[in-house]
C-alpha cells in the first residue's frame, strides 16, 4: 500500500478542522447540557437553538483587549496557552478514524500516522500538555495561578500512573501499542470493554483527571483559586486555554472509544462488502461513540461536585493504582490459563 503525501495532508487538514469544529460546538453543547440538566433552556438567542453562540463567543474573544500583566514573564506567559493548544491538537495524529477507503484504485488509510507506539505517543504528548498549564501558571506570577498550576502538575503525575497501568492490561491482551492494531483486533463486536471493564473504569476516571474536568477540576476551581492557572489570562489566550480543554475532551473520548469500545468497529460489519461504505459507516459509528463520551464528560461535570484535594490524592494513589495493578495481575493470570488450555 503506497502512501501519498497529498492524502496525508488532506487527512491532517480534515482532522484539524473537525477537532476545532467539535471543540467549538462542545462549548455550546456544554452550556446546553448543563442547562437541560438544571431544567433550563440554555443559550437559544444567537441563531436557531443558539447554533451561532460559539461563533459569537469566538468573535468576542478576538475583540477583547489582550492584556499581559506587567509582572508576568512575557515569554512564558505567551508560551503557556500555545503549548496547551499544540499538544491538544497533536494527539489526534494517531487516532484511527476509520479502516480505509478505496479511491482511484488505491487504499487510503483513515489514520494520519499508524505508528507502532501509538498509545505511548498519546501519553507522551498529553504529559507535555500539563506544561502548558504549569508554564502559564508560573509565568502569570500570581499566587492563584501558581496554586492552580501546582495542583495541575501533582494531579497529572498521580493520575498518569494509574492511566498507564490501566492501558498496560489492554496492551497485554492486544500485544501491540499501535492504536490502529488495537482497533483492528476489536473487529465486529469483540470490544475490549467486555474483557477490561475495570481497566476502562480506571482509564475513564484518569481521563477526567487529565482533562481537568469536574470532579477533578481543582487546577481551575473558581471557588478557591479565582480562575486557577488562567486567572491572569484574557482575550484569545484565555480562549486557547478553554478551547484546548474541549479539544482534550474530544481526543480523550476518541481514545476511549478506540481503546475500549471498538473504535470504528460495529456489530454485523462483515455483512458489508464495499470498503467505502464500510469506512463511512465505521466513521459514523466512531463519531457516535465519541459524541456519547463527550456528552458523558458533561453529564458527569454537571452531576458531581469537585473533590477535596486530599480526596483526590487518596483516590489516585490508594485506590486507582492498586486497582490497576490488580487488574494487570488478573489479566496476566487469565491470559496464561487460557493460553495453556489452547
Amino acid at each position, binding site marked *: 500500500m503506497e502512501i501519498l503525501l497529498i492524502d496525508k495532508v488532506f487527512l491532517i487538514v480534515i482532522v484539524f478542522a473537525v477537532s476545532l469544529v467539535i471543540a467549538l460546538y462542545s462549548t455550546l453543547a456544554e452550556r446546553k447540557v448543563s442547562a437541560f*440538566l438544571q431544567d*433550563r433552556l440554555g443559550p437559544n438567542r444567537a441563531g436557531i437553538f443558539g447554533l451561532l453562540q460559539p461563533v459569537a463567543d469566538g468573535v468576542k474573544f478576538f475583540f477583547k483587549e489582550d492584556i499581559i500583566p506587567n509582572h508576568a514573564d512575557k515569554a512564558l506567559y505567551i508560551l503557556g496557552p500555545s503549548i496547551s493548544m499544540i499538544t491538544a491538537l497533536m494527539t489526534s495524529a494517531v487516532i484511527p478514524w476509520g479502516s480505509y477507503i478505496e479511491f482511484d484504485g488505491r487504499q487510503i488509510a483513515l489514520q494520519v500516522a499508524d505508528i507502532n507506539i501509538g498509545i505511548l505517543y498519546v501519553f507522551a504528548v498529553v504529559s507535555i500538555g500539563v506544561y502548558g498549564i504549569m508554564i502559564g501558571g508560573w509565568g502569570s506570577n500570581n499566587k492563584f495561578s501558581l496554586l492552580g498550576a501546582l495542583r495541575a502538575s501533582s494531579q497529572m503525575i498521580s493520575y498518569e500512573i494509574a492511566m498507564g497501568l490501566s492501558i498496560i492490561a489492554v496492551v497485554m491482551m492486544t500485544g501491540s501499542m499501535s492504536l490502529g492494531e488495537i482497533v483492528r483486533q476489536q473487529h465486529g463486536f469483540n470490544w475490549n470493554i467486555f474483557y477490561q471493564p475495570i481497566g476502562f473504569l480506571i482509564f475513564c476516571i484518569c481521563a477526567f483527571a487529565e482533562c481537568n474536568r469536574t470532579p477533578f477540576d481543582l487546577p481551575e476551581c473558581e471557588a478557591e483559586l479565582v480562575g486557577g492557572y488562567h486567572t491572569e489570562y484574557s482575550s484569545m489566550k484565555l480562549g486557547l486555554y478553554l478551547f484546548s480543554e474541549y479539544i482534550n475532551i474530544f481526543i480523550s473520548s476518541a481514545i476511549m472509544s478506540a481503546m475500549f469500545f471498538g473504535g470504528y468497529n460495529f456489530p454485523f460489519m462483515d455483512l458489508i462488502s464495499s470498503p467505502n461504505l464500510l469506512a463511512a459507516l465505521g466513521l459514523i459509528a466512531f463519531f457516535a461513540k465519541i459524541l456519547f463520551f463527550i456528552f458523558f464528560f458533561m453529564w458527569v461535570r454537571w*452531576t458531581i461536585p469537585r473533590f477535596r484535594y486530599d480526596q483526590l490524592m487518596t*483516590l489516585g494513589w490508594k485506590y486507582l493504582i492498586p486497582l490497576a495493578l490488580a487488574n494487570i495481575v488478573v489479566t496476566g493470570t487469565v491470559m496464561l490459563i487460557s493460553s495453556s488450555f489452547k
Partner: protein
Amino acid sequence: MQLTNRSKLVVNKELSWSEKLYLPAIFSGMMITIKHLFRKKATIQYPEQKREFSKVYRGKHILKRDEQGRENCTACGLCAVSCPAEAITMVSAERKKGEEHLYREEKYASSYEINMLRCIFCGLCEEACPKDAIYLTEELMPANYDRSNFIYGKDKLVQPLGTSAHPKTYKPYKK
C-alpha cells in the same frame, strides 16, 4: 426543638471500601441528573412568553377617564393623604368654561405626580379614591437611567384618549 421532619442526624462514620470509590453514589447521582434532562423546563422565554400575573397584581398607576373621555380625578387629595410612602403630590385647578369635555367635575388636578421611587405599590391610593380615578394596573414599571424620570406626571399616568377599559378592573388598558 424540632421544627421540620427533614433534619438528619449527622454520623461521622468511616466510609466502607465501595463508598470510598464513590462510584455507587456517583451513579445514583447521574441517574438523577439524566431524569432532569427530559423534564419540562421551567424557563419562560421572556419577550415572547410572559408569566401570567396574579389577579391582584399591583403595577404602574393609571388615572382613569370616564366613558366620555373626561378625567375622573377631582384633586381631592385623599390618595396623597392615604399614601404611606408620601409619593403623591398634586396641584388642583378650577375647570374653565369650554373644558367640560376634559374634566368630569368642576375641580381637577392640573398637575399630578407620583414619585415611583418612593411608591411601594400598596394600592392604598386606589382604595382611598372616591372618584374611581386612580388604579394600579398590571403594567410593569420600566427601568430608567435617570432618577428624575421616575417622577411620573399626568403625561404618563392619565389613560390615553380613545382607550376603553372598564374603570373598575385591574387589567391594564389595551391599546
